[in-house]
């Protein structure tokens, strides 16, 4: 059981000519193993800054991030160990995989670095991980990223994230670059793995519908502030904050649309 406590975090960027910009203002939440949180907001809302702060790519200007009650290590072996506990899946599966390395290399490396399995079992573990993300390990293991489809690449990225057996996962728009018909497949896969492993997942997205589908809780971020935080159904079905309502009204929702237009008379 691992949990990360984000407590009153502010992040201020100095922007030349514009003074200081608060990317995050007093953001607090807890992400624990077994829990899924969807973080929704528009571009510029600060949701990617949250991911950077969780992974220690950025330090908060104010406030703190605690892992199991202790401050997140900021350097050295402790930071590396922390980053094996909390892994990232990025938006662009093409940019996040190195085009010069085989799929095997991508998964071997985190395995070797973390030492979760003895050296002689690494090959078997690579195959196991690829099978977990529903890839034909034998067919893809020696290929390079450009030989795979977008959906396959994102599955590789997930396998790589899972390699050191993390407790927590931050997925930053993991399906927004994929074709619509592939999105649900990848999300379902992530959802299954989350349930089996008891992972804690922060799912960052601008899409309310997939956030609701994937998450137990939803946090709505607007201009660096958390404006609403509650169970997924409550936030989507009974939004309290005007901004959340605005987001919901703007999101396509054929169900409501056809109900409103008198049983589909259109």
């Amino acid at each position, binding site marked *: 059981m691992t949990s990360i406590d984000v407590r009153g975090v502010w992040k201020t960027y100095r922007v030349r000519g514009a003074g200081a910009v608060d990317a995050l203002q007093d953001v607090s939440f807890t992400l624990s193993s077994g829990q899924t949180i969807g973080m929704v907001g528009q*571009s*510029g809302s600060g949701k990617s800054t949250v991911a950077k702060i969780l992974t220690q790519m950025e330090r908060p200007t104010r406030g703190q991030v605690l892992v199991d009650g202790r401050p997140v290590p900021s350097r050295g072996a402790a930071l590396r160990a922390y980053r094996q506990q909390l892994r990232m899946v990025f938006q662009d599966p093409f940019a996040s995989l190195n085009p010069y390395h085989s799929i095997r290399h991508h998964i071997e490396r985190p395995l070797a670095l973390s030492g979760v399995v003895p050296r002689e079992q690494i090959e078997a573990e690579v195959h196991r991980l690829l099978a977990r993300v529903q890839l034909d390990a034998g067919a893809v293991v020696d290929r390079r990223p450009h030989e795979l489809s977008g959906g396959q690449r994102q599955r590789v990225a997930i396998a790589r994230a899972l390699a050191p057996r993390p407790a927590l996962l931050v997925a930053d728009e993991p399906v927004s670059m994929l074709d619509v018909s592939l999105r649900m497949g990848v999300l379902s896969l992530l959802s299954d793995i989350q349930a089996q492993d008891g992972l804690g997942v922060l799912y960052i997205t601008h899409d309310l519908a997939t956030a609701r589908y994937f998450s137990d809780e939803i946090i709505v971020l*607007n201009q660096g*502030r958390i404006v609403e*935080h*509650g169970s997924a159904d409550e936030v989507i079905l009974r939004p309290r*904050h005007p901004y959340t309502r*605005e987001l919901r009204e703007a999101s396509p929702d054929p169900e409501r649309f056809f109900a409103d237009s008198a049983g589909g008379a259109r």
Partner: protein
Amino acid sequence: MTTLSSPGPAETDVVADGTTATRATPARARVPWRFIGRRVAFYLFTLWAAVTINFFVPRMMKGDAVDNYLARNRGISPEAADALRALLGLDSDRTLWQQYVDYLGMLARGDLGVAITHGLQPVGQVIAGALPWTVGLIGLATVFSFLIGTVGGALVGWRRGSRLDALIPVTTFLSTVPYFWIGLMAIAVFSVALGWFPIGKAYGIGTAPGLTLEFVGQVIRHGTLPLATIVVASLGGWVLGMRNMMLTVLDEDYVTVAQAKGMPNRRVLWRYAARNAVLPQIQSFALSIGFIVGGAIIVEQVFSYPGVGKMLLDATNAKDYALMQGGFLVIVLAVLIANILADVAYAFLDPRTRQSEA
């Protein structure tokens, strides 16, 4: 369930503002003082560094101009030699630092010293005599080459896959051949064998320089062959650079939009495609302007042209430090001025640079 309202002035109407990652910025054109200031500081620093290196490097070499002068002119008394050293700033009883300060002071007064290889004429005068020939010949050749190459490259890129593509290997081949070879071949064919052009020099012996029809005609006759060879040798880079940028730009959406808008081909080609593709060319053009003086050495040697390049080579052979330093200073200034011009041209041609650096 917690609902936190977000108070404060930070909240704006996202719909009206169109909150996206690429926020709108004020349309007013502001003068980017900060940017200009940084550039000026950069240029001043570069100038100082170049001047300083220019001062120290010749002093680290063995032997000086006076030794060289003495070797060629016998019967000069040691006192006269010392006086000459003092005149050239080479007297050894002054510390290097004092010499450096003196040197900077002289530069500030525009005094570049005297050229020992030109009968102790002021260096400034010697350079002023040589510079117009170099700027005239090679400057003009560079401009021609840039214009012809860029327009040609735009056309070749626009009609990709057509027979025009055959031009590319030809121009590229010509630019890979060593220049002196092209120059010598041109002299052998057009001057010696066919007798169309005079061999070398800027004008015929016996013609008095001046604004006479005869003199101008001579300059043009003597200049045509070196100019043409430079253009031929340097065209390839411009054609290839422009063509490749055109191929990239032609795949941009705004070119398709222009076509969908029913724009005539000429308009799409020049106003949309070439106008964008030319931007990287401007940068290279500025660089090549800066190298005019430096690049003059081979051309002027081959055609015995009386420009700065030949002057510099002669000065180096004779260890005439003052003249060498003067020549290098001209090169440095040329590069710096060219870069300033490129900055200005870029700011005019690419609206994005005006803002992003601010």
